[in-house]
């Protein structure tokens, strides 16, 4: 913990009372994520259908691909008719679109946002950059393989893919969720140590709790 922001600090309240605040305990949660075993009954199947048909995308554009998501709101493509909406906060979203290249600095924010989303949650890797680095494959600052840092459900290849390709990706994701394969959050919880090791290998100034949801 290199950052002073995360150390215990004493504050004096306006009425003179002194309180000690430990930001890690007060503002974050350091508990590891837990695997929630999905049921295999008809209720879960119904819920999976509801999850697939109501995808709330986190409004977080990480790279140039974010420009491809904007036309989806317009009359021409209109993603709303597929049950897709945008949400401003990770607490309410259940789909994270990594839109294009991901620099190390952004990856840190992406991990924090992803961990704040509530399970079950899904990730779509948009564009070649998330698959193997794309045209930034030999860059000093952009990651090459997204699936080493976050569990990815669907990749949409292209540089950049058109909005139609993205819509096809949504349909593919819906099929996966309805088949009960959209268990990215559980995979993340199960292989938590592996993901954390990979993340810490590239994020050298790790100044946040290991799991901050």
């Amino acid at each position, binding site marked *: 913990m290199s950052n002073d922001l995360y150390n215990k600090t004493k504050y004096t309240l306006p009425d003179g009372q002194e309180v000690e605040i430990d930001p890690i305990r007060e503002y974050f949660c350091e508990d590891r994520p837990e695997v929630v075993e999905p049921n295999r009954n008809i209720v879960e199947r119904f819920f999976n259908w509801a999850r697939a048909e*109501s995808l709330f995308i986190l409004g977080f554009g990480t790279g140039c691909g974010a420009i491809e998501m904007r036309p989806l709101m317009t*009359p021409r493509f*209109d993603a709303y*008719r597929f049950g897709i909406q945008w949400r401003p906060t990770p607490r*309410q979203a259940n789909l994270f679109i990594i839109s294009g290249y991901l620099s190390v600095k952004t990856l840190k924010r992406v991990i924090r946002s992803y961990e704040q989303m509530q399970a079950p949650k899904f990730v779509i890797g948009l564009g070649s950059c998330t698959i193997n680095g794309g045209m930034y494959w030999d860059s000093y600052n952009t990651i090459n393989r997204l699936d080493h840092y976050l569990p990815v459900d669907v990749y949409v290849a292209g540089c950049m893919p058109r909005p139609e390709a993205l819509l096809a990706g949504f349909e593919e994701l819906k099929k996966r969720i309805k088949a009960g394969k959209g268990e990215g*959050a559980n995979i993340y919880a199960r292989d938590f140590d592996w993901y954390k090791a990979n993340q810490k290998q590239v994020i050298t100034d790790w100044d946040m709790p290991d799991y901050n949801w």
Partner: protein
Amino acid sequence: MTFKPIQILYALLSVFIIMNVGLVLQGLIAKIGARVGRRYGMRIYQPYIDLFKNYSIRTSVYHGYMFFLGPVFRLTGGIGLFLFIPAIYGSPYFGNFSFAGDLVLISYFLFFGTLGMALGAGEGGHPYSGIGIARGLAQMTAAEVPLVLAIMALVVQYKTLSVTTMVAAQQGGVMHWTMVTNPVATIAAMLAFLGSMMRAPFNVVLAPQEIPIGPPTEYNSTLMAILQTNRAIFPLAKVVLFMNLFFGGATSWPELVVKGFFIYMWSVLVGVSFPRFRVDQSIRWFLKVPFAIGVLAILIVSLKG
């Protein structure tokens, strides 16, 4: 009117009906809004799917007791408002508990939910939720001023605080509705109605992309679903209240649905036609035109009486 225990069951049933009407209306309105924007629009049953999905989220984060109570208060505000209004006039089953409450109580319930959210969002630890709440409350307060003036005009006109009595006085045809007998107060109240329906031009306090600092930011999964349920109930409860005060109430469920749809459409029509006000602009607007009309309504009624 005497109280019978069976009325509790009927009250629950009426809340259930109003929730479904609200959800369908939400989808329908979203569809109409989309069609105005030349989009195909979401499916009409999409609000149901969203609700099921949010109730099915497996994990949840909470920040203390007050955080839980925020959505609960909000839902209480919606249901409470609805339960103290006579939903169906003259029906022994769906009059709810209107015999027990009056306009003063209802005015409190209009505000109750937002105050509950203020307490809950403050507990959420989000540094800017206080700003979001302050903006929302400031605009709501400004919108309440013409509404209260209009309600006072009605109280002077009918010489009662009971909603049931007011509805009773409006029975017997369109010519007896407050809309006709007291048009100035109706105009003031319908302008105030726009401000409390959380649609454009008065929804900057809620618009998520412009202000990702608002009160519901931290609410997730089931808590979010409770807020969504309230989003279905609360506007319709308000619509029913306005229906009772100004448009003769409803004597049957179909009449309630049809009248409710048209009153709701008033806010939608304005919403799709006009761009948004900033909060300071909307407060100034409410304290100018609707306020003046409200004062005028009171003057007219007092001079008549």
